């Protein structure tokens, strides 16, 4: 607190109101025009960017179930999808956070990728901005975003509500982040769009603006018309959807097994499972004995769903060496190998692990039930 707030209020009250700087607005408009933007309505600007940078273009219909279980059975052509991303005035939620820039990208029939960007010059043009955006988003069969399920789409809804615009019926939404997490969380850790770009597309952005700095640039543009940094934001936004489009194709082909990339096979199988369970099963079988047992666990889950009990039992040797692994091996030894001595050995190891777990992480209800069960099994086996 520098000077007294009350005194400052007094000073401002006595200050003459500054005349509005119409000159600033003219200046902004000239700069935007020079940067290739076209004014389509009062305060609303549009720009188009076309590139042909895609190696693989998918011409057959895309099975949307690969990205979300809710879309089972739905198909769409690649050029009938749109790729969408917002830039916003803040990073939090709430009705005071607004989107001022949007990019909507789509593939053309010859594999070009076209990015259309919408930009509002100032706050009062938000309704026009949103209406324009809605008409772009409504055309395709589905909207693809990165982290849109928790950011862009709720934000769109908040902004529409704030402007009392009814969204009507929007196409299906695919958040590519979900599939990306399944595939790459184990291998990359960080599943940000940026690290996927680097790892999968080999792309490296120069002079890119970090997302956290975007709001300040927009506020500065509003006040001063500073266009140099604003151009960075425009480019950042366009690059985001371009990468999104390319990543979408790569990830889809990876799920189908057409492109081989380093990823977590268990996650891959879980995505394949909603397209073709056989494909998932094959992926997991390939991995048996070559990992820490996660593939075996996933396969077991798949088998029990289809009531394939014997096959499931036979997976026991591939399980991880934890409580469940030892317990399953004990059952496997008893029922399949008919070796009660081995079974007892495994049951005792299972008990040991369980006891240690209970000591370390606390005794839960499930743990005490399991403890009870293993103890009874041991007593029974010793009775032989």
């Amino acid at each position, binding site marked *: 607190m520098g000077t007294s707030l009350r005194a400052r209020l007094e000073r401002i009250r006595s200050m003459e109101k500054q005349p509005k700087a119409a000159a600033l607005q003219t200046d902004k408009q000239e700069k935007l025009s020079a940067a290739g933007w076209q004014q389509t309505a009062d305060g609303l600007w549009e720009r188009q960017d076309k590139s042909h940078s895609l190696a693989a273009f998918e011409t057959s219909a895309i099975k949307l179930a690969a990205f979300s279980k809710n879309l089972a059975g739905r198909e769409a052509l690649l050029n009938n999808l749109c790729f969408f991303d917002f830039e916003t*005035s803040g990073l939090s939620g709430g*009705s005071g956070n607004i989107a001022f820039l949007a990019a909507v990208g789509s593939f053309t029939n010859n594999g070009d990728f076209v990015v259309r960007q919408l930009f509002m010059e100032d706050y009062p043009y938000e309704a026009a901005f949103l209406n324009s955006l809605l008409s772009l988003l409504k055309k395709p069969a589905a909207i693809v975003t990165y982290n849109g399920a928790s950011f862009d789409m709720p934000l769109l809804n908040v902004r529409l509500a704030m402007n009392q615009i009814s969204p009507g019926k929007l196409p299906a939404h695919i958040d590519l982040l979900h599939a990306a997490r399944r595939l790459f969380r184990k291998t990359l850790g960080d599943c940000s769009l940026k690290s996927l770009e680097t790892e999968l597309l080999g792309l490296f952005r120069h002079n890119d603006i970090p997302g956290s700095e975007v709001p300040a640039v927009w506020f500065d543009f509003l006040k001063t018309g500073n266009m140099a940094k604003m151009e960075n934001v425009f480019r950042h936004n366009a690059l985001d959807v371009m990468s999104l489009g390319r990543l979408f194709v790569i990830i889809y082909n990876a799920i189908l097994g057409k492109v081989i990339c380093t990823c977590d096979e268990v996650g891959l199988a879980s995505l394949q499972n909603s397209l073709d369970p056989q494909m998932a099963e094959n992926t997991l079988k390939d991995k048996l004995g070559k990992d820490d047992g996660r593939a075996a666990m996933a396969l077991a889950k798949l088998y029990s769903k289809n009531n394939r009990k014997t096959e499931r039992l036979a997976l026991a040797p591939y399980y991880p060496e934890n409580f469940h692994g030892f317990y399953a091996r004990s059952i496997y030894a008893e029922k399949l190998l008919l070796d009660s001595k081995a079974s007892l050995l495994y049951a005792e190891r299972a008990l040991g692990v369980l006891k240690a777990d209970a000591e370390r992480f606390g005794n839960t209800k499930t743990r005490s039930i399991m403890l009870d069960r293993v103890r009874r099994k041991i007593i029974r086996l010793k009775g032989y």
Partner: protein
Amino acid sequence: MKTAKTDNKIKEFLSDADVAIGLKSIKKLPAQAASFAELPENLNAGLAAAMKARAYEKLYIHQRKAWDFAMQRRDFVVLTPTASGKTLCYNLPVLHTLMEDPEARALYLFPTKALSQDQQAELNELLESAELKFPAVTYDGDTPRAQRKMARESARIVISNPDMLHSGILPNHTKWIQFFAGLKFIVIDEMHSYRGVFGSHVANVFRRLLRIARHYGSDPVFILCSATIGNPVELAEALVGRKIDAITENGAPRPEKIIAFYNPPLVDPVQGIRRSSADESMRLSAKLLEKGVRTILFARSRLKVEILASYLNKRFSNIYNNNNNIRVEPYRSGLLPNERRNIEKGLRDGTVSGVVSTNALELGIDIGGLDAAILAAWPGSMSSFWQQAGRAGRRQGQSLVVFVASASPLDQFYIENPERCMEAKAESARIDPENPYIYTDHVKCAAFELPFKEGEVFGSELESVLDFLTEGGVLRQSGGRWFWASASYPAEKISLRSASADNIVIVDTTKGQNSVIGEMDIPSAKELVFDDAIYIHKGRQYVVQKLDIENRHCFVEARETNYYTDAVVKNDLKLLSEDEKPFGGLLDLVVGDILVRSSAEKYKKLRFHSNENIGYGEIFLPPEEMQTRTFAIVFNNKGQAALFLQSLGEMESASCLAGFTSMLRSMAPLELLCDYQDLGTAWRLRDDHFLLPSVYIWDRYPGGTGLAEAMAQKLDAILSAAYKRLEHCDCQYGCPSCIGVAEERFSNFKDRKASVNRLIKLVLTDLHASGQG
């Protein structure tokens, strides 16, 4: 039968010679019979049946009046003591409306989370018996994420608190469209707790709430409930910014209540020293508890609560080694929620026989009725007094309240003038929604929620604050509207309570464990848990290892000590502006902005029980700085008071000013309805700013809450009361019960009382001569 027993025990207690010596007066609040009214004829049939099934054949008259007002869609406030059936005053019209109109919604606001949970339990009981399928959902910081969506989308009654409304609901109003569009009632319970700084914030939150409701086309009715305060209508109107009707007649029956005024006996009549009110209250509580009278003892600070509870428990464990039936618990803020819940439950089911509490138990938390309440020293305000007194009393039989006076002038004033306490007129609650800091904060939040339009009405200084915020770059003015233009989420950084979200967590590191045992706001932490301080938690003593303000941690370790610690706080002042000179004549009275820098640089070690000072330690912490409003009296060489001060030697003049300031601070709460702790004071023999003898009395909340302005208006009344106190004080030369403890450097002046008395009289003369008062 049981009640007759309690009546006898109370009689026994009051006639006990050990008790009788201190009893100055005994007042009785007579029993009152119930007065009933019929159930409304047009009451929804299902609800009527449910009422009858729960044996509510009739309503009390105040419940009926509430129904009538609500049906006429008039905003109103109900003034009701505890246990008078106030919840039905709002539940009946609200449930009726919700049943008749499937789109209707209601918002219930309670000052604390604990109260919301109590209310939800009660509401659900009523809903179940009426076989109503309304979801009534608590929506606060503890609500799980999954349940939140359900609350937003389908709850008909949302139970929350102002803090959650402020930081969670209003900023996300687009997720609550249906709720706001259908909002028919806003119920505000425990309205009296929305005063001072908290109330000033809450009034602004309500402005925002109504703004959002208007945006979605609804115009909800306010139903407010309050404990007794002097100005319920004024407070209600200030809080919600609308005209409010009051329901004051109470139809609920009331058993007899005895209020005893107890003054601890004098130990040293010459110096006017009395036995400590804390020790005496503990002694009285112990007597009652031994008789099996369930007792609550209210103490003024968290520290006192802990000390008294542990003394009491020790005392019982000595006498009744095999009788552990008497269990006494300390209850205060800073305990963990489940610790508090356990104590509340123990009080309800009787496993806890006594409790020592701060004002944390004043609010309507359900602990059932206790037989007796002992108030160790004046609780700071009239409404606190009656709230605490209200904790004693069940449906039937007598209850007892004992006010144990401390040596402070205000306490002694009430001992001499018990009728001031018993008079129906309680003090008023003050809020200042226009406090520039508070108001500006909420303009920010409101702009975040919806852009401001030109000509919009929101408080009194909207336009200048909007311009101020635009200049600072937080808002953008464009196209006749003001838009939020910052990347931040403003509500997150604004706490409605002085105890901010940014609390220090107290961590017990004894024997390598790392368990959280409490929390505390930063200004308090600087004065209570500095390095090497003794922190007392549930009767155990801990030594502070390290207070890490940057990381909001305080590490403590259990250790037995025979002393506790008390920080010595020093203030530096700088007057920033003289905004108002309400009076310039024989004295200058100034209201203005002030910078107060307070620092605790050392602390005292005080022995338990004897409170004897056994040493000092140093504190190394940065000072707290704040800008606030102050009132100042400047002795400008024209009036008789100033001439009198000049006639004294320098030292004696200082001694006289010190006594005068101390009386002013002690007596001010009588007229200002504030707490002693809300004010800071200082005196200067030759002030740096005015270059004259001056006395400052400032508001201890940043930006001020109107206390400095009120002080200027009430100076005459405060000084008159101070004069009366001095005249009646039975000490000879001045004592802690009138002019306060003399600093050592003033020990040469034996008769300080006479000079302070004269100064007060002359200031009053000067005021009157210039046509003031």
